């Protein structure tokens, strides 16, 4: 995201008839810019920089928050977390949940976008279907969680339609797949909407040229559509990796991480350390590790955006 700016006319020259020295002008400009930026910078400092420093500090101490004088314990907390099987279980679950969700979001989002973009349907059905497909996006996670709890109840409609009697969210074998499915349902519209915008931006003469060269519809998809959408797809995938790996509310409100730890994510694992076990030092350590993982993806995203600009 580059901020394109043009050089402004020399207002000093116009107002006083004398060109201001470049240095004073730049200083004044910078000073003025920072006046406008100050509320943002103060907020981000107090609510972003300070908390991150705090949480890193907590992770090297024992008994934080609850105790007035915590002890420095060096890297002990990190050793404890990294040797905790629960942490690795949560990491594995988060990986499965995130990678499966993102892949499915992409496939579903792209399929729906292609269907909606097809020239074989009229404008009215297209608008109606688009409205229906966007629906899951408009509900908050708390609503999505209770809705699917009702649909997936043992005597609920899903079991009726499948003629089964399964405890979808309480089964050790199925719970992780089930919460992943719910998250897929909730998250594909963002991909669909963005990819639809991307599809509509592809120049039609590219397709015409490919057709003249004798390309089949499948070949046109792989050789025209996919390369044209690639930058958007990479951005979406990186953003979705960040968002999905941080998902908390959906898990908390459907399974709470259970049964036992089958659907425990890094977010719920960290939350429970802090607000169920009141072990804020361990929770902070886990939170710092989660931050480090997110930052890796964030760096990739920023570099990708820079490359696109």
């Amino acid at each position, binding site marked *: 995201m580059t901020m394109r700016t043009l050089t402004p006319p020399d207002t000093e020259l116009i107002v006083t008839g004398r060109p201001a020295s470049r240095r004073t002008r730049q200083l004044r400009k910078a000073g003025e810019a920072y006046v406008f930026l100050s509320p943002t910078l103060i907020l981000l400092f107090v609510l972003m920089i*300070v908390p*991150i420093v705090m949480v890193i500090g907590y992770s090297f101490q024992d008994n934080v928050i609850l105790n007035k004088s915590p002890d420095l314990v060096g890297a002990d907390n990190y050793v404890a977390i990294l040797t905790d099987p629960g942490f690795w279980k949560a990491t594995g679950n988060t990986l499965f949940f995130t990678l499966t969700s993102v892949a499915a979001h992409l496939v579903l989002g792209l*399929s729906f976008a292609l269907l909606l973009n097809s020239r074989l349907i009229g404008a009215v059905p297209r608008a109606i279907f688009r409205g229906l497909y966007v629906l899951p996006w408009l509900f908050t996670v*708390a609503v999505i969680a209770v809705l699917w709890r009702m*649909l997936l109840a043992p005597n609920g409609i899903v079991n009726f339609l499948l003629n089964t009697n399964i405890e979808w969210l309480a089964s050790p074998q199925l719970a992780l797949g089930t919460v992943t499915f719910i998250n897929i349902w909730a998250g594909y519209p963002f991909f669909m909407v963005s990819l639809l915008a991307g599809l509509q931006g592809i120049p039609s003469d590219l397709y015409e040229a490919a057709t003249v060269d004798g390309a089949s519809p499948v070949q046109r998809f792989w050789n025209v559509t996919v390369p044209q959408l690639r930058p958007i797809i990479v951005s979406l995938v990186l953003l979705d990796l960040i968002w999905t790996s941080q998902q908390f509310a959906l898990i908390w409100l459907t399974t709470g991480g259970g049964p036992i730890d089958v659907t425990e994510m890094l977010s719920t694992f960290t939350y429970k350390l802090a607000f169920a076990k009141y072990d804020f030092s361990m929770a902070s350590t886990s939170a710092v590790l989660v931050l480090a993982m997110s930052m890796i993806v964030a760096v990739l995203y*920023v570099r990708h955006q820079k490359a696109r600009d």
Partner: protein
Amino acid sequence: MALTTPARPRATRTATRRRFAQAGVLVGLLIGAVFAAGPVLWMLSSSFKSNTQIFELPPRLITDTFSLDAYISIFTNPETVRFFINSYVVAGAVTILTLLVAIQAAYAFSRFEFRGKRIVNVIIVSVQAVPPITLLIPYFGLMVGLGLYNTYPGLIFTYMVFTLPYAIIMMTGYFNTLPRELDEAVRVDGAGSFTALWRVLVPISIPGIVSVGIYTFMIAWNEFLFALTLTRTIDMRTVPIGIQLLMGQHSYEWNQIMAMSILGSIPVLVLFLFFQRFFISGLTAGSVKS
């Protein structure tokens, strides 16, 4: 796939094939529609049923009795009404404050060259990737320390961290589409930058400001994790937490839970419907297109 149709269908075979393709696309769209909208339709239908009807077999989308009882009990319960008031207060305040702060920051980014611009920009972009769970623990400590635990301001300031970066990026993009001459001209006439921004730039940026405002409102309205952790008493809870509490307290009064879910989604649905076009282009401009 843009299927280009030949100018003159050569034979009936092409026409038949086209009809088949059309049918295929329609079937695909219908299956997708059931998958996407079916659950939402079921939620709506359940909110008008009695609790015995919700799990009756065979399930019916439309029952003979249509009851508003669930909605009435939501509206007549002071606790649930309070959830809505809290959500409106918090989301409204977050929206106004975010806009005030973001408009000024976006002005600086869009109209000024200054040292440190790139660094500030990178910070604002990367803030979006900081996991909420990482901030949660120090926030809990901070809010308790500052006496803002279980208060409106505590939640409002918290949400601003998540709404600001995006609002600034979207707003800067919008300002960049407006010619600089507009506000520069005022400054040449001797007015300060402040006047140029609020008297000239802001009035012509209303469409952009509205879409940023909607986005901000939606984030604040839907937030769960911090609302759960930074409030304690029932009178400070917001709608998403209210939905969870309803589920815990009333041992599965599904019709009420669904009615509350519908009511809790209406503001976002309405905003989205009215400003759809706006919103999607703004959203994709901020995150996907550069």
